[in-house]
């Protein structure tokens, strides 16, 4: 019986080997056709819009409005999981199989380069979109090598939430503009009876995309860069080190609580809302939620602090892109224009508090009344430096997370972490 089993296995192995050779021959033959002609946008008819699951219920009404106006060019909303990694994975699967199931894709801002370089999305005609009305850093996230590959639909920037009640009581004049001022303010607040046992500052330091965001902000706020203007890694610099030192030093001296190494956005929001934090770096979505919590009316927002002056935020948000393998691209282009128009951006700001790419909306008095943080957010977005815009973003962000986490966890000195990161990034990007 044993020999029979063994024989069966050896024949399977032989088959496998044979099949291997066959498939190897098969797949080396195809491909090799490199063509980069200008994309033509032809064909009208039904298309799809692919985005994360809409938890606010504001997307479908907009699509319904379009469908009513264009009964022959209906848009179907395909909802992907809320988790960004699975969205990206499904979009890549769709592209790898060259399926026409997805037409207009809602891409996270950091995916643009990767999708463009793989030619999963089409280059778009710049003249068709009101780009000059948008905030410049936001518009930059939609470009790859000077070509427009996506249209900004929403943006996002980090802000400093602070306990204005405690700062006032401690006699601190206003929100800190530098890290040193932030630490000073904390020292004063902690002397108050209410401030006893409070943590000073927190961001998102768990080993995930949030850490990349926070690391990049620290480095940029100290005047350093992760990648330079040409996209070449240049992170092993004294400036970058000062940025990382702020984070590692804060973990060491207790400015940032030890438990913050496990914080994602929600954990840090909970800590702020339960009154355990004086300063919090987070996205604008926290504002309305915190107003319903026990710190309601006790907090305000300010631009992020930096080493010698205001800091630089990372950018969030989504861009619309057109799948290269889709049909009815003329309709798709029209729909993208409609969906990213100022009017729709205003709707999304009002109903889903999505930060718009349009500069003017941040100054609209009615909107500022609804969202008092808009002027601060505008400053944040205007001064923002996007995370590295590189094709191998997945590898870049894991390298950043690995080294930054090692530095924050005390496993590595920040100098060593940055030297290693520089080496990793050079290897990943092949330069």
């Amino acid at each position, binding site marked *: *019986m044993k020999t029979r089993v063994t024989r069966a296995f050896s024949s399977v192995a032989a088959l496998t080997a044979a099949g291997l050779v066959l498939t190897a021959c098969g797949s080396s033959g195809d491909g090799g056709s490199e063509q980069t002609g200008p994309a033509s946008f032809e064909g009208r008819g039904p298309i799809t819009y692919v985005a994360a699951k809409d938890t606010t219920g504001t997307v479908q009404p907009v699509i319904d409005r379009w469908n009513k106006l264009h009964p022959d060019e209906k848009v179907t909303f395909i909802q992907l999981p809320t988790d960004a990694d699975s969205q990206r994975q499904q979009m890549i699967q769709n592209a790898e199989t060259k399926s026409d199931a997805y037409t207009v894709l809602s891409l996270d801002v950091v995916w643009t380069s990767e999708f463009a370089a793989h*030619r999963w999305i089409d280059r778009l005609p710049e003249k068709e979109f009101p780009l000059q009305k948008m905030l410049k850093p936001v518009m930059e996230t939609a470009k790859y090598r000077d070509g427009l590959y996506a249209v900004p639909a929403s943006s996002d920037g980090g802000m400093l939430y602070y306990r204005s009640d405690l700062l006032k009581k401690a006699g601190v004049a206003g929100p800190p503009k530098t890290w040193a001022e932030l630490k000073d303010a904390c020292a004063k607040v902690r002397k108050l009876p209410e401030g006893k046992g409070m943590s000073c500052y927190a961001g998102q330091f768990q080993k*995930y995309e949030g850490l990349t965001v926070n690391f990049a902000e620290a480095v940029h706020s100290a005047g350093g860069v992760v990648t330079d203007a040409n996209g070449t890694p240049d992170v092993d610099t004294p400036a970058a080190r000062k940025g990382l030192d702020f984070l590692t030093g804060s973990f060491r001296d207790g400015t940032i609580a030890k438990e913050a190494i496990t914080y994602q956005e929600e954990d840090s929001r909970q800590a702020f809302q339960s009154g355990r934090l004086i300063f919090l770096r987070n996205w604008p979505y926290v504002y309305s939620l915190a107003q319903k919590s026990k710190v309601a009316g006790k907090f305000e927002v300010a631009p992020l602090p930096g080493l010698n002056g205001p800091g630089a935020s990372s950018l969030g948000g989504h861009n619309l892109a057109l799948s290269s393998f889709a049909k009815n691209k003329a309709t798709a282009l029209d729909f993208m224009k409609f969906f990213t128009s100022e009017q729709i951006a205003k709707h999304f700001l009002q109903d889903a508090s999505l930060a718009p790419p349009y500069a003017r909306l941040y100054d609209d008095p009615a909107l500022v009344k609804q969202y008092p943080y808009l002027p601060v957010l505008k400053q944040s977005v205007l001064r923002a430096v996007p995370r590295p815009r590189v094709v191998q973003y997945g590898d870049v962000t894991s390298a950043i997370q690995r080294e930054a986490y090692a530095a924050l966890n005390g496993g590595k000195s920040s100098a060593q972490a940055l030297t290693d990161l520089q080496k990793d990034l050079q290897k990943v990007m092949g330069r």
Partner: protein
Amino acid sequence: MADIRTPARTAVRPPGGTAGRRAGRPPAPAGRRARAARATAGSGRMAALLVSPTLLVLSIVVLYPTIMALAESLYGPKGLDPRTGFISSTEPFVGLRNYADIFGEAGDRFWNAFWNTTFFTVVTVALETVIGVAMALIMHRALRGRALVRAAILIPWAVPTAISGLLWRWIFNSNGIANDLLGRQILWTSEGFQAKVAVIVAEVWKTAPFIGLLVLAGLQVIGKEVYEAARLDGAGPLRQFWHITLPLVKPALLVAVLFRCLDALRMFDLPYILVGAQKHSVETLSMLAQHEASNVRFGPASAYAVLLFLYVLLIALAFVRLLGTDLVGDGGAGGRRGRRRGIALFRRTEVTA
């Protein structure tokens, strides 16, 4: 998990059944041997015919993807053309370089994941076996409220792994219940040994009932008279358990442990959700393969998957041997079936891995 297992098992039952019956038949007398041989040949052809659809399905859903993965593992990632800024449309053939890289450059990461995988498998399966057997004994006892106890014990197993991962992430939150109960702040989801402990606790909680369930099935076929005889001979409860329950329940227990080992070896969702991706201390081989695939490097991803497949295959074969020899001792039928099931099992794992 259950919905995958069921078709695999039913699909393989026909050959196992016929083989078992044949093996169990007493040897034919010398005079009738020729006729019997002819009949066997005839029924063999019939069996082959009946089995062929199953084999066809298996080769489409199992053999083909495996071969494709093997082939894919010989290709490298697509290169970026620095002039145009576009990724080339073909993957370069690199032969065995993906494997060489895994054992060379990326060796640290691979061996770390390998040891993590092995550590999790050994520790969780050992704990699950002990707890699972205890659960089965409790469920087997004819107490009042037995149905309630059984349902309660089985609930963790019915919770999807991803959900239980989220659940335990709350429990192991820095301000969660676990820390409240322990009275100190342990950062479970940060890098370190405590992350391993968190994964093990959650995994054991979830899958010990599975072993319990299979062992319970084994317990229920043990006749009451065996225990009665033992009692008459003056054997205490501990002796009864050690010399009667355990040996008689062993076939079922071994199958359960095999299932669990193969499942644990391709552990992915629990550490991924509970502790997070790219955490050195809990990264398993499946997570490595997923990481490569999510960065559009299907070649290296396949290479990792193939290595995991080989590892699982090795463990499965070792178990099948163990099961086979053990069960042949008390009847060929059981041995055969056990062996076949084992083979079907590793086929299943290779697909899902």
